[in-house]
């Protein structure tokens, strides 16, 4: 079931895709590149811009393919690159057992009409007009070192200029935010809710113009969160939320006085981003290699029409810090891509943390299947003994990084129950309990399984159970 270059050329949607695919042919781009010859399947993980690599599957019998990237070109550059690699260097793929994510795809897919055979391999252009796989490989321009240095210097200066310009715009945006906050307070928080959507949209638009995207999104989402609050606490909640925004505004203006980690937190919350490659190349960034359990996966549709996949990881080594890592992937809603990992997955991986006063958000550097005998999902260490201790730990996190929301906690010796008509998570000895949103769906099954060691997220003033280690094994949430 060999693939020819002509078939790859024929499958490509356009010449640009071929050119883009040619840049992904380096083995370093593919942490995983495997094949099952008997079943005619190939698959790989290709490093992209997200925290997790894109997963590419290929059925060699009919050149059926699937990639987790959000590209709207079919096949995408990753799929093309995998085909291309098989066509040119099949020995680059190692033999492997077909992983679950390939099996799952196989179960869903309908067989394609088999790809037409290359009837005249000597004239590939006739088969795929406007595309030429041979010209897709770019020839690297030879530039002398001095010229290269001059170019780098010019690029660095331009980047510094852009950064300085943006700093001014952000500060100007914060001035507008302060004026807006003053207006809101002058009119009164009681009068705010009826006009919340309109007012928040106005200031969010101004902050987008000021390139303070993080703050803009926060304010854009504020009305939705406000109306989700019970009527009786709405004004209190609004005062607290706007106060929290105001604190960020003040902190940004005085960022030079902040410790380096917190300064980075403040800048990121306002809207500055760190590119994945820059983080991976940052020698000072905190790196951790360990065994991790995926303790929760959440997908949130943002107002900017992106889906944010949150993958929460818990580290296995007892007593080590940081204990948690959060991988974020942002994908277009229309892409329909599913979260890259499932709750309960255990793997060995190196992660690199974004600089922070309380490192949590991270990027995956490398990942391997765990060796045999690895600790199973749900065998957690370092859990808080009861809700009081868990909440104290969460408060300490909030003290060092005020904008960390939600805060993951691990608490042992609790169970799910009800008080009146409301659901609660309570200590077994009854010393403390906190309300849960609802007791329904699979959480009911967990409630019936007895005492838990629960992974929870403290968000604002609420707590939700993300997953749990139970007498029936690991529960990965809804």
């Amino acid at each position, binding site marked *: 079931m060999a693939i020819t270059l002509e078939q790859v050329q024929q499958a490509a949607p356009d010449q640009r895709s071929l050119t883009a695919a040619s840049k992904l042919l380096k083995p370093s781009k593919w942490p995983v590149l495997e094949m099952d010859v008997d*079943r005619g399947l190939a698959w790989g993980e290709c490093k992209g811009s997200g925290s997790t690599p894109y997963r590419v599957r290929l059925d060699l019998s009919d050149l059926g393919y699937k990639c987790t990237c959000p590209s709207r070109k079919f096949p995408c550059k990753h799929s093309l690159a995998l085909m291309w690699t098989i066509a040119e260097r099949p020995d680059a793929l190692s033999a492997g057992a077909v992983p679950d994510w390939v*099996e*799952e795809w*196989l*179960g*869903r897919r309908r*067989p394609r009409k088999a790809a037409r055979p290359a009837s005249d391999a000597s004239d590939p252009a006739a088969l795929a007009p406007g595309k030429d796989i041979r010209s897709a490989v770019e020839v690297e321009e030879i530039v002398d070192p001095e010229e290269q240095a001059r170019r780098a210097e010019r690029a660095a200066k331009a980047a510094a200029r852009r950064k300085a310009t943006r700093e001014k715009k952000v500060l100007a945006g914060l001035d507008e935010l*302060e004026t807006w*906050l*003053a207006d809101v*307070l*002058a*009119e*009164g*928080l*009681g*009068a705010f809710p009826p006009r919340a959507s309109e007012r928040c949209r106005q200031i969010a638009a101004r902050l987008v113009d000021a390139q303070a995207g993080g703050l803009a999104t926060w304010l854009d989402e504020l009305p939705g969160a406000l109306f989700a609050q019970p009527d009786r606490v709405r004004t*209190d909640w609004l*005062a*607290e*939320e706007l*106060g*929290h925004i*105001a*604190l960020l505004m*003040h902190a940004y203006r005085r960022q030079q006085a902040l410790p380096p980690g917190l300064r980075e937190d403040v800048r990121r919350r306002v809207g500055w981003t760190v590119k994945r490659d820059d983080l991976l190349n940052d020698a000072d960034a905190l790196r951790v290699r360990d065994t991790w359990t995926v303790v929760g996966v959440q997908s949130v549709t943002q107002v900017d029409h992106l889906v944010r996949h949150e993958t929460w990881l818990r580290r296995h080594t007892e007593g080590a810090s940081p204990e948690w890592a959060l991988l974020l992937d942002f994908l277009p809603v229309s892409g329909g891509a599913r979260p890259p990992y499932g709750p309960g997955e255990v793997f060995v991986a190196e992660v690199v943390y974004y600089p922070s006063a309380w490192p949590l958000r991270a990027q995956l550097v490398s990942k391997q299947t765990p060796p045999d005998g690895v600790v199973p999902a749900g065998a957690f260490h370092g859990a808080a003994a009861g809700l009081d201790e868990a*909440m104290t730990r*969460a*408060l300490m996190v*909030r*003290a060092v990084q*005020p904008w960390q929301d939600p805060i993951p906690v691990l608490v042992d010796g609790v*169970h*799910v*129950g*009800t*008080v*009146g008509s409301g659901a*609660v998570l*309570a200590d077994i000895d*009854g010393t403390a*309990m*906190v*309300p849960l949103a609802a007791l*329904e*769906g*699979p959480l*009911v*099954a*967990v*409630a*019936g*399984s*007895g005492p838990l060691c629960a992974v929870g997220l403290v968000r604002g*003033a609420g*707590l939700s159970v993300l997953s749990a280690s*139970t007498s*029936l*094994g690991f529960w*990965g949430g809804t």
Partner: protein
Amino acid sequence: MTEPLSAGERMALLRSLTLGTRRQEPELPGRLVREGDLHPAITAMAFASQQARLSSLPPRIRGTVTTFRAPEDPRPLLPETLRPALARLVTAAIASRRDLLLEPVAWRIRDLGLRLHPFDDLAMRNKSFRTCLGPYEAWYLSRGRGHAVSASAASDDTWTSLGPQTRADWLRMRRAQDPQLARDLVAGQWGQERAEMRLAMLGALEVRLGPDDTPFLESLSSDRSGKVKDLAARFLRRLDVESERDTSVEALLRKSLVVKRSPLGKRRLELVSGVDITAVRDFLVDLHPADIGERLGIPVERLMAPAGDAPLLAGSFAVGALLRDDPSTFEAFAAANLGTRVDGDQALTGWWQALAHLGAQRRPYAAEHVFTDPVARVLPGRLEDAQAALEWLEGPMPLRASRAMRAGPAWAGILSQLPDAKLGDHARACLSMPACLIHPDDARDATRDLDAIGPMADPLVHQLWQLVAALNELQPSTRSVP
């Protein structure tokens, strides 16, 4: 460090912010006001916000916690290694084929004495798995559906809060205990319910249906719902037939069956107009077909003739023979009715209904006879019907039946089709049944059959086979569904 706000200071600030600083200038503590701060109210709000966030994490609540403890289930859990494969199959199977593929797997799991993991939510997601429900899942389902009261916990005062299905379950249970009280409860609630609920409640009265129910059933002839009227009429007809049962079998037969003559003068049996096969089958299978023929003055060979209602009746007659240990008459009926001379759908429907009856009586051995040669001859095109029959039988295929299946032309036909990549839905269904139902004693042979074919053209079938092969490797548990 700045001193925190007192409760009074915080309340005063919040009052001012709520009313508007233009209307009520906040009186800010001096420690929060800095020189040059144009908007000290904003600074104070930020301070108060942090104070609140650092002092109040999830609000504590007081009260007595009611905890849940699901009933114990002694069966071992499905091995962890198979959970992902099963979940994948559930997700991958397209809706129209899901039950067909999953029910046999569910049977096999139940047959092995294993329980599904309650966290996988399979019983909730797919009804096929309800065959393996244990007490834990039943408890979960009753709660997970969101009813205020579960069927088992409902009382005469709370049963009206249940949904249609749970309410019908509860009424059946109550009807079995006290038919008159259950009927009175239904009658008392009747006028307040929608048609769907009325139909569910009426259906529950089937349990211990008796002459005392007649007045209530007759009153339903003017119900607004056609379905309710039909069901009530069916119950009344059944009562009518049953009331006659004790008088004489012969009179009963004559009331249910009529001998007609064809244009060529041949006699045949048909149901009396308006009599439902389901109402008479119970007593038909209590008689040997020769006895029926003798009482009605018609040779038993004519009872086998496939015409009119005969296919429907033939299944019952044949089962009657089988229950009297007369497999040769049974097979003669099968040979006469399951060939090509009648419309296959109609003929087979009668047979499967008859088999359902056997299944209800927990006499699955009869299935062995059904799946021997006469039926196997028509199986290449009828496997989906056989699947339906097995569902009614509520159990895995017995050893002799599975061997007959594998030795017969149907299985050979399936195997010959497999190398062809054009596996349609029907072939997929054909494959699924023997794949999952083959007796564990023969599982290895069956797996070899599949291995000989090579890689499957259909990945779903491949997944199914992998799962079944893994299940076949497991040692059966000594536990059964509690």
